[in-house]
């Protein structure tokens, strides 16, 4: 090696050292700044040539999403990249969390009833109210209760998209075999009475099947706990240990122990295969069950006394970290995607509820409901719904935490009061540690 080569080698050494030092000194981009990510400069939304939409295709909606996107592209000349960003709402949220730390944000993202709040709390989602005005969105056209589900601190952080309520699905043949009227039980006490008849008439078949705690039992049980006078929380104050909440937990446990209720990791398939006489599931399951079941089934309100039903599902949000022009273009896309005509298309393909008031009255909707009376149940039940408890939807990990506790009292057979007392304390700790400092 000659002198020149030695110099080259030395430069390599020094350059490499410098690069390594630079790399080691660089921050994560996530924790070193006190400033929230800010939208960029104002620009013309018409200059945006493409948008990225992260979805989990709720209710098997990938085809209809592609269909609506094709219509949007044809009308607006903006390319939309539909990204399968997760198998469920939680996985999409996890991917968004990773993107917030590492970059590459989408322009439109699906956010569920459980996931949107933390993004709003941390300024990761853009407030939409000003964007509505800029783009000219008629926010009043959306069903009020569904739109207001995304309100926090005098702003809205999403618009309703794949919204649902739980439904009571029942197998009409098994109902008939048990000599029951062609309707769902009006109260949980009535269901408990019917359970024995169903077990006797349909041996080896569970009268009712519901998902376990890892698959949204916490969402379904929320209505039940209300009918017993309890709740998960009163705003930020956990109320798992009130008499009503404990009574609801004991009722749930009793139904499992008497064989009236089966907890399953795959309840829709169990019901669809005739292994259960009835099912607690989302309206979003209606399309799939209608396609796959080979028996006649009906849908009914969740047992009361009402209110015993909540809403759920997801909306569409816009990250705060993308520039203003993209935000406006994204807002236009969301407005198109959830307009009256398209919400009718989406609803009929999936079973989710129409999110536009006008969609409830269109000829198409009325004709569809005439042909599909099972779909009518969700719309009629909408009037009876109540907003979800903070402990489930706003407290980080709330749904999973409550679901795990419900598993302990159902499949684990643990004492309800003990489990709910622990749950109450855990929830209180999380609120004090993770929520209160940010409010």
């Amino acid at each position, binding site marked *: *090696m000659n002198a020149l*080569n*030695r110099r*080259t*080698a*030395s430069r*390599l*050494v020094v350059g*490499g050292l410098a*690069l*390594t030092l630079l*790399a*080691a000194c*660089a921050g*994560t981009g*996530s*924790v070193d*700044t*006190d*400033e*929230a*990510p800010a939208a960029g400069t104002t620009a013309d939304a018409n200059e945006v040539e493409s948008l990225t939409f992260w979805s989990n295709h709720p209710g098997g909606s990938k085809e209809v999403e592609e269909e609506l996107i094709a219509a949007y592209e044809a009308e607006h000349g903006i390319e939309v990249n539909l990204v399968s960003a997760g198998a469920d709402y*939680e996985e999409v*949220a*996890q991917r*968004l*969390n990773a993107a*917030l*730390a590492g970059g590459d944000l989408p322009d439109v993202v699906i956010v569920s009833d459980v996931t949107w709040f*933390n*993004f709003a*709390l*941390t*300024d*990761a989602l853009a407030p939409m109210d000003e964007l509505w005005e800029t783009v000219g969105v008629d926010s009043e056209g959306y069903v009020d209760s569904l739109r207001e589900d995304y309100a926090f601190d005098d702003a809205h952080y999403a618009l309703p998209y794949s919204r649902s309520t739980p439904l009571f699905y029942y197998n009409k043949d098994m109902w008939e075999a048990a000599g029951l009227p062609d309707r769902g039980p009006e109260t949980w006490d009535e269901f408990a009475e019917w359970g024995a008849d169903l077990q006797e008439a349909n041996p080896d078949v569970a009268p009712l099947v519901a998902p*376990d*705690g*890892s698959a949204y039992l916490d969402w379904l049980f929320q209505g039940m706990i209300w009918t017993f006078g309890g709740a998960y929380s009163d705003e930020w104050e956990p109320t798992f240990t009130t008499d009503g909440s404990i009574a609801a937990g004991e009722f749930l446990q009793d139904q499992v122990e008497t064989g009236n209720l089966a*907890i*399953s*990791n*795959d309840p829709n*398939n169990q019901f669809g*295969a005739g*292994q259960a006489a009835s099912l607690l599931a989302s309206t979003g399951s209606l399309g799939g069950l209608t396609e796959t079941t080979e028996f006649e089934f009906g849908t009914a309100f969740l047992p009361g006394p009402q209110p015993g039903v909540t809403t759920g599902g997801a909306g569409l949000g816009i990250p705060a970290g993308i520039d203003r022009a993209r935000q406006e273009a994204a807002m236009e896309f969301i407005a198109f995607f959830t307009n009256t005509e398209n919400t009718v298309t989406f609803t009929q393909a999936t079973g989710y509820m129409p999110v536009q008031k006008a969609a409830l009255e269109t000829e198409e909707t009325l004709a569809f409901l005439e042909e599909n009376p099972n779909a009518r149940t969700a719309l009629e039940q909408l009037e009876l719904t109540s907003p979800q408890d903070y402990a489930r939807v706003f407290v*980080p*990990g709330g749904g*999973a*935490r409550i*679901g*795990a*506790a419900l*598993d*302990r009292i159902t*499949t*684990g057979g643990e004492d309800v009061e003990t489990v709910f007392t622990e749950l109450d304390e855990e929830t209180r700790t*999380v609120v004090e*540690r*993770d929520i209160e400092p*940010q409010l």
Partner: protein
Amino acid sequence: MTADARTEDRPVAALTAPPPGSGARVVTTRGQRYRRREVLLALAFLFPNLVLLGVFTYRPLLDNFRLSFTSWNIASPTAQYIGFDNYVEWFTSSSSQTVLWNTVVFTGAAVVGSMVLGLALALLLDQKLVGRNAVRSLVFAPFVLAGAAVGVAFQFVFDPTFGLVQDVLGRLGIDAPSFYQDPRWALFMVTTTYVWKNLGYTFVIYLAALQGRRAELDEAAEIDAASTWTKFRRVTWPQLRPATFFLLITVLLNSFQVFDVIHTMTRGGPLGDGTTTMVYQIYQETFVNLRAGYGATVASIMFVALLLITLAQVFLMERGRQK
């Protein structure tokens, strides 16, 4: 020997070396230059890798340690320094004990199960059997499958309503256990699934070791009329020790970090943490409970634990070799 021949036989360095005591320093400097040249050249070749390692391995590692001392909502742009609070919480939490127990059981069963079964299959398929190549391929195939795909497939195998296990046990008049609702059976289910997926790896390493063993030792044992067990214990097994040590480290490290099978099959449940291992706890705390600082703490504890286990294994292996 001629003078020329003697000259040719001398090392190159000696040719340029001054006579002892001459005090000439030029040649010494050239020798140093020669060594420096080699060092610089080596560094030049090493640097790209060192930079990549620094950026993609050691910097995240250091960053993770830094984050473990913070309270950080992963969606938030800010984090608060909280000292050792996360570590205190993990070491005093009752759920940590469950997670640690699950990790030890899962890892232990996965290491022992896949190594014992892998060795047994390797010994069997090392014999001259009809169609052994096809069977070898079948045994190895699951290892190249994605863990998530294996998890989804085995969900059906263990399905309480339609599953293969339920069907087979039903034909034998046995009620299938509650794989998805009883934490012990759930842990058994995910461990079995992982062992099945990982079997091909231990099998192929053991098979390679068996095929590389010294044939004359086997022949000597046969001449001495050693029994099959004695031959295995005294002749074959000692030759498999390096492979066993290698597998012990790699399988243990891999098993410790299994995520995909658990996520697709049980999501860490039932009962909340029935199959939650340390890696799964990192995910749960970071992405479900949104406590990225606490997740980093669990990751740091796991890193130190793995480091200590690996060092202990190396130490024991070295000591065994010296003996």
